[in-house]
């Protein structure tokens, strides 16, 4: 039972994070809040990726002079590499998005997404 919870807590937690983020994105009107939601989703998915590569009781996959053969119980290193990349991308997008938000505020004097509707139909 505990095992089960432990295994699924990462999983469920991360999915929950994503859902919370998604909820934020589709309910909040404020652009900043929407981007907070997007960040939450990003974080959630990163947690999910890391948790997928987790091996119970594993150690960091770093080969040193003492740990130099495959018999050790390594955690899968690839998801961690992926998450690093993903974080970088997420940050880039976030930065760009916030930059755009600043410009939007200058132009429209509002952050309410439902009022920024110059392009429609």
């Amino acid at each position: 039972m505990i095992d089960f919870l432990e295994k699924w807590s990462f999983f469920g937690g991360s999915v929950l994070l994503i859902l919370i983020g998604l909820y934020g994105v589709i309910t909040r009107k404020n652009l900043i809040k929407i981007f907070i939601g997007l960040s939450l989703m990003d974080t959630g998915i990163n947690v999910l990726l890391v948790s997928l590569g987790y091996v119970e009781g594993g150690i960091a996959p770093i080969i040193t002079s003492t740990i130099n053969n495959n018999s050790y119980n390594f955690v899968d290193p690839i998801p961690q590499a992926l998450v690093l990349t993903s974080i970088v991308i997420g940050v880039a997008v976030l930065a760009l998005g916030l930059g755009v938000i600043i410009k939007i505020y200058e132009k429209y004097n509002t952050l309410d997404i439902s009022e920024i509707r110059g392009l429609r139909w």
Partner: protein
Amino acid sequence: MSLFYYTFIPIVIAFIAYFLNKKIKLSLAILNSVVFAYLFYQISRLYNQWNIPHETISYYMFDREIQLIFQLTPLSWLFIFMTTGAGLLIAIFTIKSQQEYVLRSSFHLNFAILIGSILGVVLAGDFLTLFIFWEIMTWSSFFLISSGEKKAAQKASYRYIILSTIGAYLMVTALFIIYNQIHTFGYNQVAAHLSGLPITESIILIIMLAIPFIIKAGVFPFHVWVNGAHSNAPKEFSPFLSGLMLKVGIYGVILLLYFVPLYNILKESVNYRGLPIFNYILAIFGCITVITGTILAIRQEDVKRLVAFSSISQMGYIIMALAISTPLGFTGGLLHLMNHMIFKTTIFLSIAAVIYRTKTTKMSEMGGLIFKMPVTFTAYLIAIIALAGIPPTNGFISKWVIYQALIDKGYIFLSVAAFFGSIGSFMYVFKPLSTIFLGQLKPEHENIKEVPFLMQLPMFVLMALILLFGILPGLQMNLINQISQLLNIQPVGFTLYSITGAFGKWNSLVIFSLFVGGFLLAFIIFISAKKSKQVGLMDTYTSGEYMDDPEAYHYAYQYFRPFDRVFDSFAARSLTVIYDTFAQNIVKLGNLFRKSIVTGNGQTYAFYMVLFIVILAFAGWII
């Protein structure tokens, strides 16, 4: 010269000329006339060389080579001859008539492409080649129609192209259903395959194949494009549109009815008086076309619209005659096809000449032009005599043969419709005659002159043809019998000036000589009486009133009002309205989507994503 080049010479030369036009000041109309004259000469030399080998071009399309076949048969010869002939006459006509027209160069480009593509359609030896050139024909004619000077030209061409495209897509669907079964497009193979299929399947395929042709021919449920296109097209193109383009649709119908012998395929199915029900329905559509075209033509106030509706009704005759599939019907249909091309081109050309001088198409804005434009009037008069089917012109002969064919089989309703159209045609052809050429001359038309000689020339040629074929129908019958042989139809007996019908024999020489006699007698009596004094048109009986305004003294607007009153409710319920409503509903649906989906709110878009994912998940769950 290879058959292939006939289709490409006009197209290529047109393109080159179009792009050189700016650099070197050349008149595309003259160039086109020269090219068409050359083609016409070459084609006339092809007569009787039916055993020219087929030519093929291979085209790698799916995972195999597809052969595009070109072949020459008497039937295709007839059409290419007519096409280049009409093209030549119209090109000569345009040399002078388009001096002030802005879109000249695009007109001539598209016109040459159109000629080339029609040659391609009729020289094609398989359905894919036919389809390719058919599409080019549709598109070039679309551009020609939309280059009309009126604003309504664009809407009219729009209707034309949408309807044509729907037809073309039906055809291509049917073709590829067949292709996937037999992997070829050849006429003979397709015909053989169609006759081998279960009857319902082959009927559906044939209907899909036939609809584009029927649309192009302007037959009843699809005639809605014809009037708009004809009346709004450039005045020089309307003759070709009516004279030739509609006939290309008929070519397709002939192809399906006789070359792919529909009769044989459907012989075993339900039939009416020995005629397969499909043919009979087609004939009924032809019959409705005749009636609708006639009634609507009588109502028109715009001369080009009037003649356009008359074209619709004449197409009905041809379809009716061809659909009944007897030797006489076939002969009558083809004869009428040729004759209609000749006299309808004449009518439209004479009207183009009138428009060239008066700049209007409303009949009530003209009048009394007979003294100003006698040649144009004569051309119009002779052409309408032919159209109304009055002897001794060619129009009567073909109608006579069609009546013979209809009565022979006892198709009473069809014959009544045919007569209705014929008598109705008196009414509608007389209306322009009376309101444009006769009656009071408008003061603003006081200084009008006859059109230049280059515009008269085509009219003279066509007038001569009307009379020539009226007296010597054997010239046409010779070719028609060769076509009949090709299509395994029993030829109709004929000599140079007589045709044998089902109930009698037509002898044009006798009739012509009696005509001359009758007229001579009348003329002698007339001459021998006292010479009369010429007075002006305003010098007439006015019940004692003093009239000084020729405008008010010209009976032109709503010429047949009592008759129109009978059909007012009929005309209000037009098919055009139904089609338009359908199209508008689709547009409304689109607007609904647009207003409700594309709200411009980024959040809504995000919500769509979530919704989409949820739906996907549910759907994935279900399967």
